C-alpha cells in the first residue's frame, strides 16, 4: 500500500542551525524524505538529530536554508498548522486526561464531530491494542502502554508525516524489540511517512527503509540498511553501524576501486577503496568480524596464520580473539551443525575477501 516511492514529501534545502550564533548544530543539511517511507536519523547523542526534527516540527527555526513539506515552504507555518504527528521520548501525555481524551485531543482541536471522534479513538485503541484502557489515566499505565497511547495520539488525525524522537529509549530491551516490530507493522498498515530518530544502530537497521547517519550536524551517509552495513561510505559510518576490526596501515598500491595496504606489522593485504586514496597515505581498514573466515585454505585471498587467543561462547555463535603477527583481530564464527569452533591456543589459517575489507583515509576519525 506504499504510494509512489519517488514522490518527495519533505525537502531540507541547505539548512543550517545554530543556537548560539557561532556553533553550527546542523550544517548544510540536504535531505529528501519520500512519501510513505520509514526514514531513520541515526547518530550519537549531540549530533543534531533532535534539532533537525524540531525544525521540521516548527519548534526551532533554521538559521538559514529552507524546509518544504508537500512541496510548500514551511517558513511561516506555525506548528499547529503543520499537521505533523510527533511521538516524544518522554511520551508527553497529558497527565490530567484519560487515555481516550489524550487520543481525542487532536480531533477536538480540529472540531470534529463527537461521533467521528468516538469512532476514530476506538479504531486507534484497537490499532495499538489498548482496548479497555480508554478510561485510565496515563499514570495508571506501564511505560509500554503509555508509548502506545502517544503513538495513537500522533496517528489519530491522519497526519501525512509522523516524527518520533527516540520513542523506545525508555523501554527495556525485550519490550523495545517488540515495539520495533509493532511500529513496523503499523507503518506498513497505514502507509504513513515516518521520520524516526535513534542512536541505536540495531533499531535503525531493523525498522528503516533508509537511514541517514548523522555526525557533528552533518549527514555522513544516507542509504538503505543493507547498503549502510555492506558498503559504509566512511570509517565513521563503518564504526557506527555494526562491529568492526580497525587495522591501521599505509597504501602501497592503488588500482580502480581496490588498493594494497601494508599493515603496521608488515602484512600486506588487499581491500576495497570506496574513497579516492593516494599511494603512501595512512588508512584504516574496516573488517567485519563475521567476514573473517577461520579455517580457510592456504590459497585464499588475504590468508594469514593466526593463533586463537581466546574463545567466548555465545550460544548461536562464538567470538574469537586472534593474534596475527602482533595484531589482534576479532572473528565471529557460527555454532552450527557444519562448523566446529577452534579451541584457544590452536593455530588456524584465517582469510577474508577483499570485498569485505574497506580502506578509509586514516585521519578521518571525527
Amino acid at each position, binding site marked *: 500500500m506504499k504510494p509512489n516511492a519517488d514522490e518527495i514529501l519533505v525537502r531540507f534545502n541547505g539548512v543550517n542551525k545554530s543556537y548560539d550564533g557561532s556553533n553550527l548544530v546542523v550544517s548544510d543539511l540536504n535531505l529528501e524524505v519520500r512519501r510513505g517511507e520509514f526514514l531513520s536519523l541515526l547518530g550519537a547523542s549531540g549530533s543534531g538529530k533532535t534539532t533537525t526534527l524540531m525544525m521540521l*516540527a*516548527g*519548534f526551532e527555526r533554521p538559521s538559514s536554508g529552507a524546509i518544504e513539506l508537500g512541496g510548500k515552504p514551511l517558513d511561516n507555518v*506555525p*506548528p*499547529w498548522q*503543520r*499537521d*505533523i*504527528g*510527533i511521538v*516524544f521520548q*518522554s511520551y*508527553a*501525555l*497529558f*497527565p*490530567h486526561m484519560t487515555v481516550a481524551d489524550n487520543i481525542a*485531543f*487532536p480531533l477536538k*482541536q*480540529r472540531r470534529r464531530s463527537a461521533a467521528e471522534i468516538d469512532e476514530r479513538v476506538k479504531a486507534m485503541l484497537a490499532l495499538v491494542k489498548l482496548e479497555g484502557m480508554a478510561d485510565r489515566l496515563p499514570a495508571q499505565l506501564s511505560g509500554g502502554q503509555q508509548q502506545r497511547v502517544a503513538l495513537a*495520539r*500522533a496517528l489519530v*488525525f491522519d497526519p501525512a508525516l509522523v516524527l518520533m524522537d527516540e520513542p523506545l529509549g525508555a523501554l527495556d530491551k525485550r519490550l523495545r524489540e517488540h515495539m520495533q516490530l509493532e511500529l513496523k507493522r503499523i507503518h506498513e498498515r497505514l502507509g504513513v511517512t515516518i521520520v524516526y530518530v535513534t542512536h541505536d544502530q540495531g533499531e535503525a537497521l531493523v525498522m528503516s527503509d533508509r537511514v541517514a547517519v548523522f555526525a557533528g550536524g552533518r549527514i555522513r551517509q544516507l542509504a538503505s540498511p543493507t547498503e549502510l552495513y555492506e558498503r559504509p561510505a566512511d570509517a565513521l559510518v563503518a564504526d557506527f553501524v555494526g562491529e568492526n576490526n580497525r587495522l591501521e596501515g599505509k597504501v602501497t598500491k592503488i588500482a580502480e576501486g581496490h588498493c594494497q595496504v601494508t599493515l603496521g606489522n608488515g602484512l600486506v593485504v588487499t581491500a576495497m577503496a570506496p574513497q579516492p586514496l593516494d599511494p603512501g597515505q595512512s588508512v584504516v581498514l574496516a573488517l567485519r568480524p563475521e567476514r573473517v573466515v577461520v579455517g580457510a585454505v592456504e590459497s585464499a585471498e588475504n590468508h594469514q596464520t593466526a593463533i586463537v587467543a581466546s574463545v567466548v561462547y555465545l550460544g548461536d555463535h562464538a567470538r574469537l580473539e586472534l593474534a596475527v603477527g602482533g595484531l589482534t583481530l576479532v572473528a565471529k564464527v557460527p555454532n552450527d551443525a557444519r562448523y566446529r569452533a577452534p579451541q584457544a591456543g590452536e593455530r588456524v589459517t584465517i582469510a577474508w575477501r577483499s570485498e569485505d575489507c574497506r580502506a578509509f583515509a586514516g585521519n578521518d576519525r571525527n
Partner: protein
Amino acid sequence: MEIGGPELTRALRASRRRQQVGALTLVAPALIFLIAVFAIPLALFTFRSVDNAETWSVLPLTRSALSNWDGKDLPPETVYAALATDVQAIERSAAATLGRRLNYSEPGMRSLIISLHGLKLDPARPVAAQMIAANVRWGEHRIWQVIDSESGRLTPYYALRALDLQLADGRIVASSSEDSATFRSIFARTFWISGIVTLLCLIIGFPVAYVLATAKGWFGRILFISILLPFWTSVLVRSMSWILLLQQNGILNRFLIDIGLINAPLTLIYNRTGVYIAMVHVLLPLFVLPLYGVMLKVDRALLRAAASLGARPLAVFRHAYLPQVIPGVMAGLVLVFVTAIGFYITPVLVGGGGDQMISYFVAFYTNASVNWGLAAALGTLLLLATLLCLGVFRWAFGSATMVTGR
C-alpha cells in the same frame, strides 16, 4: 521477619530505634525553640480568651457565698459581707482591674467596685444596708446577677464579644456594649481586603512569574531582584517611599498631572487604595515565588505535544500549561490570603481609620485598652480562620502541594 529468628528481629528494631533517636537529637534544638517561642505562648494566648482570672482569683469568699444564693431575690447578707471583704482585701489597682472587667458586662460596675474598695464599714451593722446606703445600685438584682455569672473560672464573654454577641439571662443575644465595635464587620473587612489583595496578586503576579520563568540573562535577573526587593526592605523604609510616592503632591500625582492625565491629585494614601497598593507590593513575592518555582519545572514537551496536535497558543495554554501550574497558583493564593488576613503594620501606616484590619484591634486591645481577653479572642478567631483556609486547601490539593507548590 521470622526468617532470621528473634535475634535478628531484635537487632533490626534496635537499629531502627537508634536511627530515630539520632534524628530526634538533630531536630531537638528546633523543636525546643518552637515549643518555647511558639507553642507555649500560643496556648497561653488562646487560653486568655476564656480565662476569667481577673474576677475568679480575687473573689474567693464571694464565690462560695454566692453558691448558696438561689438567684431569685437579692442575695443574703453573707454575700454582701463576702464581697466587701474580698474587695477590701486587695490592692486598689487590683480592685480597678476587677471593676473594669465587670464593667464590660454591666456599665457602672467600675465605679461601684472602686467606691466599695474605699468604703468605711461599721462592723457592728449589716453590711448590705451600708453598701446600699453608699450606692443604691447595690440593691439592684441585675448587679448581683453579673457578679454571679462573671465570677467563674472560665468565661464565654470574650469569645462572644469578638462575634458581637453576649450572654443575657443565659441566652446568646446581640451585644449591647457601648463600645460595640462591630467585630463582625471588621472580620468581613479583613477578608474582603485580603481577597482583593489576593486577586490583584494573581492578576499582576501570574504574568510576572511567567516572564521570570522564561526570561534569560540580565533582564530576568533584574526583574527577579525588583520583585524580591520589597521582601528585603524594612517596612518603615518601604512605607516612607509609599508616602513620598503616593501622597497628595507626591511623585505619582505630580507625574499624572504633568502628563495631563488628571487635573486634581488623587487620594492614594491613608485610604483603602493605599492599603491595596502597599499590601500587594509586600505580598507579591509570596505569590510569585512558588509559582515561579512551578513554572520553571513545566514540562515543555507537553506544550510542544499540544501544539503539534493542532492546539493554537491559547489552547496550548489552557490544556497543557495551566494544568501544570495550577498547584503553584493555588499555593500562592493561599499563602497570600493567609498572610494578608494577619496584616497589621501596613494598613496602620498607609490606611485610614476605616481600613484597619482585625490585627489592628488585637494590638489595640493588647496595648491601648488593656483587654487581653478580647485581644486573645479576636486573635484566636483569626487563627481559626487561617487554619480553615489551610485545611480547605489541603483537603483540595494534598499537603505536599502546600509546601512545594507541586
